[in-house]
């Protein structure tokens, strides 16, 4: 290559290590990256626009398909936004079930991250163990909702059904088993010299800069900022549980890895507390404008029948107001900004996707690193293209 000339390399959208369909245009000087331009939009399905032509219940399966690695957390954020707009409070039991589903989803998301991140860097074994344990959570999802990856189990005003005895049994089995599994991941990676060489000191970002870029979630906490929506603005009974927020110091790939590894343990602690202290009571809110009357009532009572038709056809009627609700997704602060116009359909649904914001920092994170480290850094910020492109 002539002096001063750079080479342009297209990485993706079908590169296995770009986590979906991310396309990076890399300008290389030898093996050093000079400039990066991320191209997104290859998984765009127009979820925000489709939502405008649907009623509030029909949007729930769409949100499953945002961050499909942790589907229940997206459901949680969306349902809570609509509930905030309607001004209803979900019963305690439903909140606890939501917390269990959400934290299981977070562990599922981190499983996929750990497996693929290690696979990208070259540690091929880990993915088999993470997927083995992920299978257990999928079985729990299946027991509860009937579907494994996209449960669509949460509803506006509660959850779809009550839990089963087998669900409690499976969750307890998982809670018992999982610490051993995390020890296994640690044995394979944390002290491993190859892993350390590939991650320590790679892609560091200081706390100040991470905040300026709008980082949230484990990527921000890796830089040492103790910001977590579950603690900063507790929602859905999170104030009932005793858990810690792991933070790092150096903001490099290895610290982000350590933070997520500790989140496995903390999420598990939340699940354990929730399943042991599960309150009795209904799982849907007792509000005739939201609650779908059950089949027995429908057979007996004509007004219940009419109400059922009304609720199923149109869903809840929301006031003409605007509301923002954020939850801690597995990748960061997942926010929904919802504008209601008094009809049965959202006027506008804006999704604040943490991955989109993390992707916007890629040109900064990847400038000047070696080509091989591009893979580690993309893996460490844990992006899911389903959420970026929406």
């Amino acid at each position, binding site marked *: 290559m002539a002096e001063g000339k750079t080479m342009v390399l297209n990485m993706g959208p079908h590169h296995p290590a770009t986590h979906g369909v991310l396309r990076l245009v890399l300008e290389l000087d030898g093996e050093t990256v000079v400039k990066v331009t991320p191209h997104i939009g290859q998984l765009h399905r127009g979820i925000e626009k489709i939502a405008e032509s649907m009623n509030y219940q029909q949007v729930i399966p769409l949100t499953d398909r945002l961050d499909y690695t942790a589907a229940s957390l997206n459901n949680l954020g969306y349902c809570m936004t609509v509930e905030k707009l309607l001004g209803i409070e979900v019963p305690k039991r439903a909140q606890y079930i939501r917390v269990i589903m959400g934290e299981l989803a977070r562990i599922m998301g981190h499983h996929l991250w750990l497996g693929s991140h290690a696979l990208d860097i070259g540690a091929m074994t880990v993915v088999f163990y993470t997927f083995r344990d992920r299978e257990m959570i999928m079985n729990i999802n299946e027991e509860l909702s009937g579907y494994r990856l996209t449960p669509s189990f949460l509803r506006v005003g509660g959850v*779809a059904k009550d839990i089963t005895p087998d669900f409690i049994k499976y969750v307890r089995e998982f809670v018992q088993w999982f610490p051993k599994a995390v020890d296994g991941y640690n044995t394979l990676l944390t*002290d491993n010299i190859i892993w350390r060489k590939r991650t320590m000191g790679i892609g560091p970002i200081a706390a100040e800069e991470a905040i300026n870029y709008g980082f949230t979630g484990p990527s921000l906490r890796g830089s040492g900022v103790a910001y977590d929506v579950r603690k900063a603005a507790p929602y859905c009974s999170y104030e009932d549980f005793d858990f810690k927020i792991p933070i*790092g110091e150096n903001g490099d790939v290895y610290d982000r890895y350590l933070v997520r*590894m500790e989140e496995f343990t903390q999420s598990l602690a939340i699940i354990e507390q929730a399943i042991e202290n599960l309150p009795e009571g209904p799982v849907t809110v007792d509000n005739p404008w939201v609650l779908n009357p059950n089949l027995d009532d429908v057979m007996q009572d004509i007004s219940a029948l009419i109400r*059922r038709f009304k609720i*199923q056809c149109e869903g809840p009627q929301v006031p003409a107001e605007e509301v923002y609700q954020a939850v801690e997704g597995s990748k960061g602060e997942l926010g929904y900004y919802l504008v209601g116009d008094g009809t049965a359909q959202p006027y506008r649904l804006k999704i604040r996707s943490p991955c989109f914001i993390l992707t916007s920092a890629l040109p900064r994170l990847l400038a000047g690193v070696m080509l091989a480290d591009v893979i580690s850094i993309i893996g460490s910020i844990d992006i899911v293209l389903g959420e970026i492109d929406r």
Partner: protein
Amino acid sequence: MSNRDYAVNVSGRRTQRGKIVLPLLKGLAYTLKNFFSKPITIQYPTQRREVRERWRGLHRLNVDGQGTLKCVACGLCAKICPPQAIRIVPYEEEGGTRFPKEFYIDEIRCIFCGFCQEACPVGAIELTKVYDYVDYDRQDFQFDITKLKDPEQFIFKGK
């Protein structure tokens, strides 16, 4: 800004210099131990896993004791269906009983969210445990009443 009382600093777990061979051997030992454990994979399709009770698979139109469809063609399932996969043509008898004359579900469009079985006011539509329907033609996935009455026939039973 940084340290709040609920935060736990995990940077202390950073391994310092040294420690090169032993962690590698430990990792290999972990893998070796798992090598002799019972495999969790199953040999699909000769071995099939039992799915749970609430599984959301292919749809079934339930019939009552006399063998007639329970469905009253109210169209609530078609209304709630997020991908609009259900199409119903209603038909009314002399006595005023409503039946579906035609009932189509596009199993390619369907996302198996289960809203139709939740919406149904008479318990006529139900999602079964059949999860691996395969066919050659897109047209074959347009399920009509005959197919919807008995989705269990599509369970793969081996050659």
